[in-house]
């Protein structure tokens, strides 16, 4: 009891200090100087109530724990159908999901479709980084660099040489893969923290290069007016540029700006399905197992005749090419890119998606990407506290579900 009293006082004290700093005082401009304002009385009441709550919950934490353990938990495992039935329903469920994804945008608002497209981009990025961090265990903090390479590949090729989106898609993936290869070489021997620092530096290098190479990339002004993707040469604009036809003219329907948004969304769905399929195959192939083996024990890998150079480089290049894919699509969707879009915080968010979802788990990464992009939009009113909620989510996850939302499930191999 004595111990928990001290603990409770300590926790309440910390809550008070943090709450005072973050909620109790506010900076405001008064002429040319800054002044500190105190919060109003109602807000102080809230703070004190919060402190009291923390104090009481800490004081009676053992009792509360005992109480919560008495609450019966539903057996979620029982809800899952039997293995045999599951095998029958699974393809149908997947088909229904895909059809749902394709039909859904025609029934909702333009904003929702746009948000879904953004989510799909993050899903692609998360899946790509999942190869590097989740499977191969190589902590990469500069992943956004490959995203930038993909985006700028399309932007520059389309601006200077008039390449189309579809032609640039493989080129962007290849070029990003090449950059992954270049980064992979010097870091072959590094692990853990050292690797994180080098990749962080690499990410910054690419961003600073884009920022300063003004003659080609436009520097901080970025590149605007990037062409949108076309459907077999049909444009999605109000008026066709010379020698082409627009989508609505070709099909003889009325023009609406929503068509373009839905088209972009459908491309994103297509890309995500392709990426999920490819990575899913990779994970079940020898190379996928080798990535995981390398994460588990590098020395054992070497003793069994696995060439770690090839394995690490393949993880870096394949992860990077996925980001290149996503980057190319991002540039096409935005129509405008600048180095601002590729700052470190983007890398951190993608990494958070992987960790939150569960390292190596594809479903987990997809769910986490949805959570990380949709939640901030839903909680728009709290946008001031976005980073605070982000941090809180991380702490809560690491405390109660350190293995992620949906931990990776090992494939069950049939023996005969």
């Amino acid at each position: 009891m004595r111990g928990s009293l001290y603990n409770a006082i300590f926790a309440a004290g910390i809550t008070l200090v943090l709450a005072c700093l973050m909620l109790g005082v506010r900076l405001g401009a008064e002429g040319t100087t800054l002044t500190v304002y105190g919060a109003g009385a109602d807000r102080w009441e809230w703070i004190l109530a919060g402190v009291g709550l923390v104090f009481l919950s800490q004081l009676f934490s053992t009792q509360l724990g005992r109480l919560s353990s008495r609450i019966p938990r539903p057996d979620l495992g029982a809800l899952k159908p039997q293995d045999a039935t599951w095998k029958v329903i699974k393809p149908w469920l997947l088909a229904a999901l895909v059809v749902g994804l394709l039909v859904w945008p025609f029934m909702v608002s333009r904003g929702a479709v746009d948000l879904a497209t953004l989510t799909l981009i993050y899903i692609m990025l998360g899946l790509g980084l999942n190869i590097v961090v989740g499977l191969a265990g190589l902590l990469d903090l500069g992943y956004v660099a490959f995203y930038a390479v993909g985006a700028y590949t399309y932007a520059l090729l389309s601006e200077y040489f008039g390449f189309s989106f579809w032609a640039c898609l493989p080129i962007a993936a290849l070029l990003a893969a090449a950059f992954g290869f270049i980064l992979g070489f010097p870091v072959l021997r590094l692990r853990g923290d050292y690797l994180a620092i080098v990749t962080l530096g690499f990410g910054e290098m690419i961003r600073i290069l884009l920022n300063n190479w003004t003659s080609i990339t436009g520097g901080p002004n970025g590149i605007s007016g990037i062409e949108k993707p076309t459907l077999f040469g049909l444009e999605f604009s109000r008026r066709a540029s010379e020698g082409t036809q627009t989508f609505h003219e070709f099909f003889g329907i009325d023009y609406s700006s929503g068509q373009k948004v839905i088209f972009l969304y459908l491309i994103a769905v297509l890309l995500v399905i392709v990426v999920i399929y490819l990575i899913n195959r990779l994970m079940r192939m020898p190379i996928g197992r080798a990535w995981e083996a390398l994460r588990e024990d590098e020395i054992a890998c070497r003793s069994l005749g696995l060439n770690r150079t090839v394995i690490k480089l393949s993880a870096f290049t394949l992860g990077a090419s996925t980001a290149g894919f996503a980057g190319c699509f991002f540039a096409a969707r935005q129509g405008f890119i600048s180095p601002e879009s590729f700052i470190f915080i983007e890398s951190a968010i993608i990494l958070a998606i992987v960790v939150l979802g569960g390292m190596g788990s594809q479903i987990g990464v997809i769910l986490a990407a949805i959570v990380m992009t949709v939640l901030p939009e839903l909680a728009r009113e709290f946008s001031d506290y976005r980073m605070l909620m982000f941090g809180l989510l991380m702490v809560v996850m690491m405390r109660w579900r350190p293995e992620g939302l949906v931990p990776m499930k090992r494939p069950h191999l049939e023996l005969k």
Partner: protein
Amino acid sequence: MSQLLLDVNELTMRFGGLLAVNKVNLSVKHRQIVSIIGPNGAGKTTVFNCLSGFYIPTDGSIMFNGQQLAGLKDFQISRKGLVRTFQHVRLFSKMTVIENMLVAQHRHLNTNLFAGMLKTPSYRRLEKEAMDRAIYWLEEVNLLQHANRAAGNLAYGQQRKLEIARCMSTQPQLLLLDEPAAGLNPNETKELDQLIVRLRDEHEISILLIEHDMGLVMGISDHIYVIAQGTPLADGKPDEVKQNPDVIKAYLGES
């Protein structure tokens, strides 16, 4: 067979001023169990590290099947058919037992990305062969019923056996075992004893063994080398080594 499988000449390993291994000679014939014994810190594991390519020896030659191994990379050496285990079990502990076995056969599989994406006939055939080999070896060490469990959740003795099975699935000619009986109970040690002998007699491979369990060593070895402080002290048949006064002195100290 007259030709030596492994012929090590004047192997020397120096770490700065420390002479860890000093002019060690070893030879292993086909279908032979050869042991290296010696007090703690004698340099036995360093010899293994040199043989398996984890260290590049300072001097000396390592001939394996008439090919020079000194200077090759670790993974190249193991591809030639010389595979080792470790003093501390090194499994891919989060992966399942069967996955451990498949990873070991990586180089026998079709690792071409496109072949795997398209599941070409050659990819399927090699994958199936690897699976069969994995099942065969798991059966051999009596672990088949645990095939889909995470390797890290096995009991310690089972992990040891899995490590040997994993090495065997790479189809080696020479197996290097670094203290395989460490931490095993008497029953498990006896099983291991039988397994090693079976590997030699039925699967016709050679084994080079580091071990402290003298019962095991004396019982199964065809030849024994004794190393003390990095220097070869004696070698011979188990009985000869047992009676050698230098060996007794090195183990028990001078009286």
